[in-house]
């Protein structure tokens, strides 16, 4: 597996459309998220030239993971769509605070189960570390993220310093959290 990162214009040719299709398969088809889709691709209003993508690609070219990074001095998911997760505090607006979103480490054609002992070396762990390193390389000192319980646990299991903004909102029976990640 290799990890590639960059703005859309900086990604290898053909990778961005593959990424949009991967996101469709993971977030729309598997997780059932209600997201804007068209012709088997998932993109939203926060996909643009300022977005930075972190993409895990297998040797055969199949995408097996992704993350999106956005600076908070522009529009981003937490402030625009989930302000209720801010627990009454103003949304960050700071070029050193970035948002991590659309994180997935799902291999679409291979079911993976990892024991806790092996987790630090898993692809999910690697992708998270790469995403954090990418954010740091772009000047981030902290991350915010709108996340689900599984992701919060993943971050905790990696020993990453993170903390919630407040209580979760319950959407379709699932708790959704706003979290800080300290880089």
């Amino acid at each position, binding site marked *: 597996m290799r990890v590639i990162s960059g703005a859309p214009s900086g990604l290898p040719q053909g990778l961005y459309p593959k990424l949009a299709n991967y996101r469709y398969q993971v977030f729309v088809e598997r997780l059932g998220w209600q997201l804007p889709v068209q012709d088997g691709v998932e993109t939203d209003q926060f996909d643009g030239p300022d977005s930075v993508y972190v993409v895990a690609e297998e040797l055969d070219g199949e995408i097996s993971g992704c993350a999106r990074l956005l600076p908070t001095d522009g529009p981003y998911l937490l402030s625009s769509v989930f302000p209720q997760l801010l*627990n009454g*505090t103003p949304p960050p607006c700071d070029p050193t605070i970035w948002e991590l979103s659309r994180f997935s480490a*799902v291999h679409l054609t291979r079911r993976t189960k990892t024991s806790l002992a092996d987790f630090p070396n898993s692809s999910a762990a690697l992708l998270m570390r790469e995403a954090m390193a990418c954010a740091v390389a772009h000047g981030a000192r902290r991350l915010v993220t709108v996340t689900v319980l599984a992701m*919060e*646990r993943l971050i905790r299991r990696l020993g990453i310093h993170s903390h919630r903004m407040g*209580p979760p909102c*319950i959407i379709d*029976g699932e*708790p959704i959290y706003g979290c800080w990640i300290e880089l």
Partner: protein
Amino acid sequence: MLETDRVTGRVFPLEITPSDDGYLRLSQAKFRAIPLVHLISGLDTEPAGTVSASVGATLADIAGFTEWASLTTPAVSLGWDWLLEAFDREVRCLRLGEPRSNIMLLDRHSRDLGHTQTAVALALVVDEMDWHETVADYVRTRYA
């Protein structure tokens, strides 16, 4: 919500102000004085002790999560994982791992306990809470 000054006996509103880093900073005494209400509990789909990046994992152990919060503004958030364990012909609901929260506890000098020590201290608080029946009843109803 009110708190009482131990020296003068005067009663004040309990103020919770978020810090710039997003933490709610509280002494352990103040935190323990805040009533928490149950928000939601649920079952996990992945076996306890494994991490699955795929959906559709097989349930091998009965485990789940529970979320509690204060009714203050801003609100305190406290969540933790639990596991059902059979012991001496009894089924017990045990906390699994340390809680997750938006709290930074302070020592008696008003210094941060730190992220790790706060989690340890919150785990002790959870273990003293009477949460087991609430979670069991909620899960029974939710998945009936």
